[in-house]
């Protein structure tokens, strides 16, 4: 029992590391790779939870996570990046150091919060919940400290990864939820892709700061 817990804890930790990697990567390609790694690790964690807690329906969740987020979406994103011709480095708003500092603070916050909120309950699921919350917050952080539209999509999806991890810890996450989550991810990906394509077509850039200057409204 303890070993099972240790392993799931390890996998969650690896996901967290991947989130950090997302934060400090300079090139778009590397960002996508880090996302793929995070998703695969998620799949492994969910599969392990399915096997050790004897919840066969979670296998399906793991399969979806692996297939969709670990393989299909990263490939699609790569193709989009090639078609748009983005090989530059990711535009940043704040420096890497500051982003990492803030990330560490967020981890501390989520830890403190989870301890406060789940006082008196069983300790086993608690740490995973804290890690999952940290992953969500880091994904959000990524969305705001990066200027590239593709990296925003990736940040959004890493938030989803964190949510799925948290939900795994909860008893009985039904398949319906997972399917709907998957579909929402797929649809949002398509929307983002189309959007990005169109923007690139019209304005020759997907730098959102540059896009903002094109807005017709008075400031």
């Amino acid at each position, binding site marked *: 029992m303890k070993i099972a817990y240790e392993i799931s804890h390890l996998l969650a930790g690896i996901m967290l590391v991947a989130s950090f990697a997302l934060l400090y990567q300079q090139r778009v390609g590397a960002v996508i790779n880090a996302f793929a790694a995070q998703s695969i690790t998620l799949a492994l964690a969910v599969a392990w939870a399915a096997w050790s807690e004897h919840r066969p329906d979670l296998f399906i969740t793991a399969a979806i996570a692996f297939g969709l987020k670990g393989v299909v979406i990263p490939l699609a994103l790569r193709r989009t990046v090639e078609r748009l011709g983005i090989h530059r480095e990711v535009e940043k*708003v704040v420096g890497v150091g500051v982003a990492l500092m803030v990330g560490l603070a*967020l981890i501390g*916050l*989520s830890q*403190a*919060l989870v301890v*406060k*909120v789940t006082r008196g309950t069983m300790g086993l699921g608690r740490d995973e919940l804290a890690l999952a919350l940290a992953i969500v*917050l880091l994904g*959000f*952080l990524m*969305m*705001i400290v990066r*200027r590239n539209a593709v990296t*925003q999509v990736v940040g959004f999806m890493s938030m989803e990864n964190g949510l799925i991890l948290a939900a795994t810890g909860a008893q009985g996450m039904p398949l319906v939820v997972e399917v709907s989550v998957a579909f929402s991810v797929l649809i949002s990906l398509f929307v983002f892709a189309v959007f990005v394509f169109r923007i690139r077509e019209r304005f020759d850039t997907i730098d*959102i*700061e540059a896009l*903002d200057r094109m*807005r017709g*409204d*008075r*400031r």
Partner: protein
Amino acid sequence: MLALYASGAALAVLAGAAGLAILARGALRLVYPLAALAALALGAVDLHVLLTGDVLTGSLPIGLPTIGLRLRLDSLSAFFGVVINGGVLAVSVYGLGLDREKDLTPRVEPLFPLFAAAMNLVLLADDAYGFLFSWELMSLSSWALVVARHTDPESRRASHLYLVMAVIGTTALLFAFGGLAGPAGGYSFDTIRAHAAQPAIAALVLASALIGCGSKGGLIPLHAWLPLAHPAAPSHVSALMSGVMTKVAIYGFVRIAFDLLGPPAWWWALPPIVLGAITAVLGLLYAVLDRDLKRVLAYSTIENVGVIFVALGLALAFRANGFTQGAAVALTAALLHVLNHSWFKSLLFLGAGAVLHATGRRDLDGLGGLIRTMPRTAIFFLVGALAISALPPLNGFVSEWLLFQSVLAGPMLPQASLRFAVPAIGAMLALAAALAAACFVRVYGTAFLGRPRTVEAARAHDVPLAQQVAMGALALLCILGGLLGAPLASVLAPLVRTFSGGMLPASGSGPTPFSLVAFDSARSVYDAAVIALFVTIASLVTLVVVHRVSERRTRRGPAWDCGFPDPSPATQYTASSFAQPLRRVYGTVVFGARETVTMPPPGDRSAASLQVTLVDYSWRAFYAAPGAAVLRLAERLNMLQFLTIRRYLVLMFAALVILLSIAAVTT
């Protein structure tokens, strides 16, 4: 059971009338008869509940999914229902006399039964959802009636301000009900009654209720919409808004403060008492200086609402200190004033409507001499004006007398601030009573007496029979209400006992069945019937004796006017002339009144001019200043419209982190 079905049917009739009138233009004429019948049925049910003390409950499946709409008719709702349906009945009868081609429009008639139905629903609601839904329906339907003449810029401005104030009021009531429901979230009135609120929450609820209900009733400083909106609506609708909708606001306050909040604390009494007294005096000062007939009546409504709030505050103070009989006297005064005011204010507004219909003018300086051209309207309006000035033996004096009796019981109160406040309030109430008499002598004297000042006033004619019947019935009620004050008070006794814990001595304990006894027949008795009888006998005896003894001949001639009669009616006093002494005494302090006279130099034949400037300080402080502040803030915050996607995300992220930190830090 039958009663419940009857009320349901009546409400359905009202809704149906509204729908019909929207769909078929020919059905507009049916609105008033149907509304009168429905009001009669509802009023009968309410009267039955009031007299027997039954409580009717029911529920409808519409509304929130798990809760539905719960209805309850207890004696408090029934009393206010009698008030409301009586008003609707009178106004509907008045409406029967409206000219089909000229006056009935699809803008007004369909909304009228909707308005009446909404007011009844507010009284019947037994949970917060039902109450707020009906309250909003009432506000919106009356707003639509105010904006009926949308081409008139005054109506547009009035409707805009009305909408803003109505939204503020409903938001305040939302807070009040939220506080009452508590963290458990029980919104039905039964669950709210079951558990008492903590003192801090109770204070918040009381303040919100005072803001919410006070803004609908016209309590200063939330009053500014009322003198704009009430006159802008058609006259019979103004009668309903002033005479009846303000009573629904009072009902809301009574329901929250006396029923839902549980046992009162003594300091709850201070805000209604202080605000009510200020409202009473200021309302009349506005009225005395205004030159539009309907606006004067609207300001007078504000005064009467202030008086009612003073009475309610006194009842709370007495009840909190355990003086149940004092609370009973004050509460009876409040409830009787609710009833009386709905009668005479509706009468006065219907009279104003008659004047507007006959002459086409609303300004007092354009009227005059209507006592000869509109004799019956003049008599009814006179009864209303004397009643509202609280002159015996009419009904206004009964509630004033009870209120003064409860003020006299003030020395019983142990708390120092109440002891100091009550005599000050008594002084302000006496001032308000004297100002009311001055105001209505001015209105009646300028509009109905004297000589006609314009061609329209000279060509006026009296109104159709239906409208005269409506006004006459209300005038009769004012007279009867004055004579039968004691029996009315005893009808209200069970209701008063439920909400105040005490009761007036039974109606037989005074010297005659008509004597109104406040505390003890050795201490204070007012016997309207006996006084009326004495005055009548004295008048008749005087008449007979004088006619026997004196020269009976009468001759008509030109007016004496100290030997210099002027044929031009422009030399008689106008409304502003009448108000000039009062403006000099009170206006300079309260309104910063300044008169500037510009005299042309000798030899110059241009006209001299007199300019009077009045400053409305409450408008500046409570409406213009916050409005300007809100606009400035909105300009600054407008920047938020133009952020980039990333900056929006920064905002969201910052909000999330802050909330999580708060959750992490607090216990």
